[in-house]
C-alpha cells in the first residue's frame, strides 16, 4: 500500500476555558489515501471539526492548543510548519468547505473576487486569466450564468448557490485534498441532493481525496469509501461503508447506526444510548464510552484507553475496543444475522456502493 496523503497520528488538542481544560481530542489517528473519500462521523462535540481545523492550522489559539501528535501531509508535518509555509499549502493543496454557507462568504466582496483571490494568491497568473478560470469553475459547479454571478455579492445568492460557490472556491486550484465540514447540514434535502451531485461529479473529474465530516450516516455512505467514527475526542472505529452497516464492531458504532430512524424500515421503537457523553473537562480514564457501553466488560474498560487496532488483518477495519483481542477477523459479541441485516440495510457489496 502506498503512503497515505494525510496521516494524523495521536493528535491531542486542548481548549483552555473558564470551566477548565477541555480535552477535545485525545489521541486521534486518521489516514487519508490518494483518491479516497473518508467520511468522519460523530455527534456534536466529538471533535470531528476540531480535527480538521487542526489540519488546516485554523484552530483559534488561544483557547485551543495542540498538545501532542503529528499531522503529516505529503511528508511534511503541518504542525511544525510556519504560517507562511501553511499558506502555501492551504487553498493550494488542501482546501476546506464549511458548514454554514450563509456566514462563510465575505458579505462585502463579490463572488468573483473571492473565488479568483485563491488563484491570484497561489499562481503567477493575470487577473483576467484568474477570472476566466473562476468562471469555468463556477460553471463546473452547476451555477447558471457564471459571468454575471462573478459580480454579485453573496447576499443575493441562495444557500445552495453559496455552497456551490464555496465548492468552486475550494476546487479552483485543483487541490489534492478537500475537507468538507458538514457541507449540506444547513441545506434542504432537495438542495442537499444537488450539492452532493456536484461533489460526486467533481470527484470523478478531478483527482481529489475528500474528507467528508457529517453527523448524517446515510448521507456519508452515499459518497464515502471508508468511514471513521468518532466519539468524545477519540476515533472509535474505521472501516469501509459496507462493513460499518454489516458488521460494526464498536458498541458505539452499533448503537449509533441503530438509533437513526430509517426510511426503508417499518417504524418501531428506536433504540437509544443510555447516559450522556462524558464531560471533556477532566474526562474519565480508560475508554470514554465505558460509562454508557452495553458491552462493558470490566475494570479494563475504566482504566486502560483502548488503542485503535486493526482487526481485519488487512488494515481496513480498525477498532478501539477491549472486546477485540484477536486481531484477525474479529466477530462482535452480538448476533450478526448478515442476511437479515442486509435486507434491512441493503448495502452494496461492490465498490460503487459508496460512489458512482
Amino acid at each position: 500500500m502506498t503512503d497515505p496523503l494525510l496521516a494524523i497520528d495521536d493528535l491531542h488538542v486542548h481548549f483552555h476555558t473558564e470551566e477548565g481544560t477541555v480535552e477535545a481530542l485525545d489521541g486521534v489517528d486518521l489516514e487519508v489515501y490518494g483518491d479516497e473519500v473518508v467520511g468522519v462521523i460523530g455527534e456534536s462535540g466529538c471533535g470531528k471539526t476540531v480535527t480538521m481545523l487542526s489540519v488546516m492550522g485554523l484552530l483559534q489559539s488561544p483557547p485551543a492548543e495542540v498538545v501532542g501528535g503529528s499531522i503529516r501531509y505529503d511528508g511534511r508535518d503541518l504542525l511544525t510548519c510556519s504560517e507562511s509555509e501553511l499558506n502555501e499549502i492551504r487553498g493550494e493543496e488542501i482546501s476546506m468547505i464549511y458548514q454554514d454557507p450563509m456566514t462563510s462568504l465575505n458579505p462585502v466582496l463579490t463572488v468573483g473576487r473571492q473565488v479568483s483571490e485563491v488563484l491570484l494568491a497561489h499562481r503567477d497568473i493575470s487577473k483576467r486569466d484568474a477570472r476566466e478560470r473562476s468562471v469555468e469553475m463556477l460553471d463546473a459547479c452547476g451555477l447558471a450564468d457564471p459571468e454575471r454571478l462573478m459580480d454579485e455579492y453573496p447576499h443575493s445568492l441562495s444557500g445552495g448557490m453559496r455552497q456551490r460557490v464555496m465548492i468552486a472556491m475550494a476546487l479552483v486550484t485543483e487541490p489534492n485534498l478537500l475537507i468538507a465540514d458538514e457541507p449540506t447540514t444547513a441545506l434542504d434535502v432537495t438542495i442537499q441532493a444537488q450539492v452532493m451531485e456536484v461533489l460526486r461529479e467533481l470527484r470523478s473529474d478531478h483527482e481529489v481525496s475528500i474528507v467528508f465530516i457529517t453527523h448524517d450516516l446515510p448521507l456519508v455512505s452515499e459518497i464515502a469509501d471508508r468511514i471513521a467514527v468518532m466519539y468524545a475526542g477519540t476515533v472509535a472505529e474505521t472501516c469501509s461503508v459496507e462493513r460499518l452497516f454489516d458488521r460494526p464492531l464498536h458498541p458505539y458504532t452499533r448503537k449509533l447506526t441503530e438509533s437513526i430512524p430509517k426510511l426503508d424500515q417499518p417504524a418501531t421503537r428506536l433504540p437509544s444510548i443510555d447516559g450522556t457523553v462524558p464531560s471533556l473537562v477532566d474526562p474519565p480514564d480508560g475508554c470514554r464510552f465505558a460509562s454508557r457501553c452495553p458491552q462493558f466488560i470490566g475494570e479494563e474498560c475504566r482504566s486502560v484507553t483502548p488503542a485503535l487496532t486493526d482487526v481485519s488483518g488487512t488494515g481496513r477495519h480498525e477498532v478501539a475496543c477491549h472486546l477485540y483481542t484477536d486481531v484477525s477477523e474479529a466477530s462482535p459479541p452480538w448476533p450478526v444475522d448478515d442476511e437479515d441485516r442486509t435486507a434491512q440495510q441493503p448495502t452494496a457489496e461492490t465498490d460503487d456502493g459508496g460512489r458512482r
Partner: protein
Amino acid sequence: MLKYIIRRLLVMVPVVLGVTVVISTLIYLSPGNPAQIALGQNANPEAVARLEQQMGLNKPPHLRYVDWLTQALQGNLGRSLETGTPVTDLIVERLPATLELAFASLAIMLVIALPLGVVSAVRQYSWVDNASMLFAIFWLSMPSFWLALILLLLFAVHWDFFPISGRAGALLSVTALSYLVLPAIANGARRAGLLTRMMRSSMLEILNKDYIRTAKGKGIGQRSVIYSHGMRNAMIPIVTLLGLQVPSLISSSVIVEVVFAWPGMGRLLVDAVLRRDYPVVQGVTLMYAVIVIVANLLVDIAYSYLDPQISYD
C-alpha cells in the same frame, strides 16, 4: 440610490419639525419677558407693552410657534434681544469656526483611533493591545474642559508653543492652524479614546467571523485577510457609531469653544443662555440639530456604500 436619499430627506422633515417644537416649547416655558429683556430692566412699561404687541408675545403659544416657523422657513430666525442683530447673520458668522473645529477633531480621532484599534485587535492581549487600551481609558475619562485648561496651561502659557485663545480667520495659514491645534485636541481626545475601543471590538468581532476563517483557509496571507476581508467589514459598524458620536462631539465643542474663546456657535449659545437671549438660543439650537441630522444622513449614505447588503429602496 437617489430614491434612498429622497426617502431619507423626507424622513428628516418630521424630525426637524419635532426639534423646532421642542425648542419653542422650552422657550415658551422659560421665565422672563423677552420684551423686558430687550429693553432692559428699567424700561418704560408702556414701551415694553408696545414691544410685546410688536413681537406677538400676547398671542397664544401655538400661533407664536406658527409665526416663528413661517419666518424661519424664509430664513428669518428673529433678532437678538441683546444687540438686535438678525440671528441668521450671527449663525452664518459663527458656523465656519464650529465646523472647522468639528472636522479637525474628527480628523484627529480617525488618525489616532483607527490604526490603534486595528493593531490592538489583530494582536489581542499583546503589549500593544494593553498599552493602547490603557491609553484609550485614560483619554476617554478626561473631562474635555479640564483637558482644555491643562493644554492651555502647558502648551500655551508655560511653553508658549501655541496661542492662548481665539481664532485667526479661515484655515489658510500656519498661524490660523496654530490657533486650531489645542482646541481640536481637547475636543477630539476623549472621543479618540472611545473610537479606539470601538474599532478594536469591531475588528475583533469580525476576526471571529466564519468568512475570516474561510479567507485564512485559502492561504492568502495575513495582510490580505486583515485588510481585504477584515477592515471593510469592521468599518461598517464604526461608521454607524461615528454618526452616533456627532452629537457628543458637538456637545463637547460647546465647552471647548468657551475655554479657548473660539468664536463658534457654542460660545454664542452659552452667552445667549446666560443673558436669556431667547431668539439666539432658539436659532443656534436649531442649527445644531440640523448639523446632527445632516451628519446622520451622510453616515447613512456612506454606510450604504460600504455594505452591499443594504438595499436602496
